[in-house]
């Protein structure tokens, strides 16, 4: 199951539990009773502790999976990415000028070996853009921002060969929706 569906499922389960609790409480509002403050306080404490433990567990489970690069890993390949209204230039050589960006954005797709650690060094030559990597089937796999003056390093290990589109995920102007880039993942051993 893709991470998006796992997150959706978790959301739906917790939401269903919360909604059911609300419905149960709202169906039990008619008969006036004096509540025992100690019992309410005890229940509240249990609820708060349960919530806190769930949050701590979620932190412990998810923080080891931060998408930021670790210095201990050395990428097998580096791809330089420069974003500019309204295309991504991807190249195996650094992109520092508009001319290089134009050549990179209009040239053939960069080729990346499957199952190898690739580092995308992403920057922008004008405004903020979002470097969103999609699978050939249209699922968002990962992303980082393309910000002027900064280089964001996104590391990926892509297993399936194919042409991977890149969409801009930060509003960057009137043609934001049509801004894109592309790269190709090939099965190792073919090249």
């Amino acid at each position, binding site marked *: 199951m893709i991470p*998006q*569906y796992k*997150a*959706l499922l978790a*959301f739906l389960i*917790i*939401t269903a539990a*919360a*909604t059911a609790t*609300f419905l149960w*409480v709202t169906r*039990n*509002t*008619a008969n*006036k*009773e004096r*509540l025992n403050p100690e019992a*309410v306080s005890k229940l*509240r404490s249990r*609820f*708060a502790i349960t*919530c806190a433990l769930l*949050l701590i567990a*979620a*932190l412990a489970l*998810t*923080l080891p*999976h*931060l*998408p930021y*690069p670790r210095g201990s890993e050395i990428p097998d390949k580096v791809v330089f990415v420069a974003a500019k*209204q309204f295309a991504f230039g991807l190249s195996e050589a650094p992109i520092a000028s508009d001319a290089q960006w134009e050549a990179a954005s209009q040239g053939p797709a960069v080729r990346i070996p499957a199952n190898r650690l690739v580092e995308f060094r992403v920057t922008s030559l*004008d*405004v*903020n853009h*979002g470097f*969103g990597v999609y699978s050939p089937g*249209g*699922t*968002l*796999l*990962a*992303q980082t*921002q393309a*910000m*002027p*003056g*900064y280089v*964001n390093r*996104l590391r990926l290990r892509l297993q399936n060969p194919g042409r991977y*589109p890149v*969409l801009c*995920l*930060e*509003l960057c*102007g*009137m043609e*934001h*929706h*049509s801004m894109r880039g592309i790269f190709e993942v090939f099965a190792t051993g073919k090249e």
Partner: protein
Amino acid sequence: MSSPTSASSAATPRLRRNTMLWALLAMALFLVSTLLGLFLRLFQGNSFPAVEPVWFYSALTLHALIMVGAWFLGSMAGVHYLLSRYVRPSSAISELAMGGSVVGVVLISISTLLGKFGVGWYFLFPLPLYPNGAWSPWATIVFFAGLAILAVFWLAWVLDLLRAIARRYSLSMALGWHILRGAKEPEVPPLVLITTVSLVVVTAALVAAALVLALFVLHGSGRANVDALLMKNLTFLFGHIIVNITLYLGVAILYELLPAFAGRPWKTSWLVAFAWNAVLLLVLFAYLHHLYMDFAQPRWVQVVGQTASYFLSLPAAAVSVFGSLALIYRSGFRWTMASRLLVCGVLGWVIGGIAAVVDATVAVNSVFHNTLWVPAHFHTYYLMGVVLMVLAFFDHLSRELTGSDTDVPAAGWILSLLLLGGYGFLAMFYYGGATSVPRRFATYPEETLQGVIQARVAAAFVVLLLAALVIYLSRMAARCLRAFALCRNAS
């Protein structure tokens, strides 16, 4: 706890009249913004193939700013009114804020609708300076002038409410620090505590907004080379807090109104004071989840962002939400349209909050950031949360001021239609996020064409929502106008 009816006895006719005007203004802006929202979803559903995308982005900018502005002002008006039970805020400052808000909204409307200025509500640096032929420099200037006017007048109103609170309560007392030290007296109403927390934080947000505007001017005039990451931090510090605090002001109204329907008090206990002081601290760091995908931010900052965002939900869940449910459980709760809206508002807050916590997980944000999941969660706690809470207040007050106590027979149906339209519309956002559909796209590329059909379905639900709103708000607007006339005659 006194009933909401007694609130009117403390309010002057001028305050009542102003509050009704604020209600009318917020409702009018809300309807305009919802219509713009319908246009956006229809556009994404390819309903206007001949219209240039530039109109989508300018409408998107206006939609967001009007919606946030309308309910920030609506919740401020509600809090201002209810605070008059305890302190004396200035009606003149509120009137000034209203004038400034109208001017600001007009300028932003001119900039977006005539000037085609379409950079999103957050005008992320340096995009406004890179029009690429889409808008003229005058549109940028008018937009920033409108924002500056809003910031100045809103800040004046915020500071005046803080001044009014400070005349009766010291800051430490208003924040309940004596209760945290174990004292029982003097009592501080939750409304005062939550409003103080909210307004202190809003002040920081508006200062950040002013700084962003100043840095834009310095950069645009060539007098400084401004750092994009700093600007993004400041922008989201301001933007996230304004939206977050609008919600908390709605919750302040909840704390004041709900006890009247339940017939039980809701006092500032040690736990309530602790929870809202924790909010005061955590909310300043929660904005960092907007920058998870800026890998240049230090790793520890991102960890702080996730931790703060997670634990910001704890006081809300364990104190305010649990407290609401405990308050109404077996209380002989009085169900009216207003009280139904309040309870539905709490549920919307919870559902939006759950989605927010999911998205505040860095590992999940990698695949949800700037997809439709993001508008899904904030539309939930906004549209189905704070909007319902503030509408509950306006509904209740307008009935009280006009003496029309009973709900119309169709109230239940109207609310059902509103919830069906609202949650149906939101479901398409959630589904869109889970299927990788990007947000803020005028049209969808071939990889995410599922977004087109989702947008069409969402638009159908928005039509249902609008139908419910038109019926409900037109009746309430008529009541507000009657109340306004009565208050004017009384003064």
